[in-house]
């Protein structure tokens, strides 16, 4: 019973910089951990806008994996059970724009445009 309650506790790993958050997601998923990308709630917001949510019982394991992979974390927060976190799945960060014959894929300000059908990249833009 106690273990079940503990499993419901969530922890949040926060990072200073997005680079570490993305690498953290990659190495933890590769290690088989069940994690979600979330935006920290305002009262916990610190560091970059992407945090990783996981079961509280996985924190020690996750911290060890991140340390082994040189992923620098800012802090680990243990969240009250009723905390509502906003999911920030990477697929929502990568946006696509449809043109008649082309598709533009955007992540942040990096944009890659390819021709539909052939997949040939026709333009790359790093600006606004």
């Amino acid at each position, binding site marked *: 019973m106690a273990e079940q309650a503990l499993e419901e506790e969530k922890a949040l790993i926060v990072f*200073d*910089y*997005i*680079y570490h958050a993305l690498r953290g997601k990659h190495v933890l998923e590769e290690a088989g951990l069940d994690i979600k990308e979330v935006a920290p709630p305002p009262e916990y917001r610190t*560091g*970059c*806008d*992407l945090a990783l949510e996981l079961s509280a019982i996985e924190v020690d394991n996750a911290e060890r994996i991140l340390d082994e992979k040189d992923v620098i974390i800012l802090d680990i927060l243990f969240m009250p059970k009723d905390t509502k976190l906003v999911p*920030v799945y990477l697929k929502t*960060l990568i*946006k696509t*724009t449809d*043109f008649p*014959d*082309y598709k*533009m894929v955007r992540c*942040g*300000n*990096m*944009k890659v*445009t390819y*021709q539909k059908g052939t997949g040939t990249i*026709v*333009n*790359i*833009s*790093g*600006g*606004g």
Partner: protein
Amino acid sequence: MLLLVGTIPVEDMPLTHGQCKYEGDKLIIGGYTLEQEYVTIGTAAMISAASATCQALNIDEPYALVMGDTGMGEGTKSIFEFLINEVSNLKPKVLTIHYILPSRDQFLKLVDTVDNLEDKPFFIADAGALLNAKATGASKKFDMFTPDPGELSFLADQDAAHPAYVQHFIFEVDNTDVARLSKQAYDHGDTPRYMVVKAAVDHVIVDGEVVGVVKEPLIPALEAIGGTGDTITGIVSALIFSGIEPSDACLKAAQINRFMGELANPTPATGIAKLVEHIPEAVKKVVS
């Protein structure tokens, strides 16, 4: 003199300086001619746009200082050495520095040299020079930056020493963010007096405050085309060199950049070279 400075990604291009002239399929810099895609890549796109603008305004062509650099830093190093020694002789009225690799000591030496000139030029930075200026705390020694939203995010992050490690960059920088980030960056001393930020809506910033925006014409395909930030830097450099007041030059440059796109009637696959060809006509639509 309008002096434009930066590296070109051509491995064996020697240190080259001289009057330049954009001729559509080639860009002549002193005794060196860039052809094909190299006419509108990075620094060359900025120079071509400035040259085309000067031609339309019937003023002196820009003078460029460039060298090949494919990421090893040799071009950057040689450009700095040359410019530190020669900038007082060249006596630029407007000096724009563009793609260079990170360098602290040489960069700061150049900035101090320019700052101590008797007739200090209007000093503009974009791309690598802008990032260097912020990372070395030298932003206030410049008069203008021409950032895109990504670069603006870096300027606004007081603790970031590298553009790949910025906070609050993961979400799209919307129009509200441009104003907020510009103010934030200005307040902690990381922007110069003037900025033109090229985005979905272009913003002109003076002393950290938005003084103008440019939304039209809106050409959706332009967003996909790489190099339109480089062209706006070249255009605004030429307009300031022509004597137009800096904040007005920013507004006009943003308009010209958009008209350039409209006139080219581009698809998302159109290269920047096809847009630059239309700059003279776009300049004439905006500058009476």
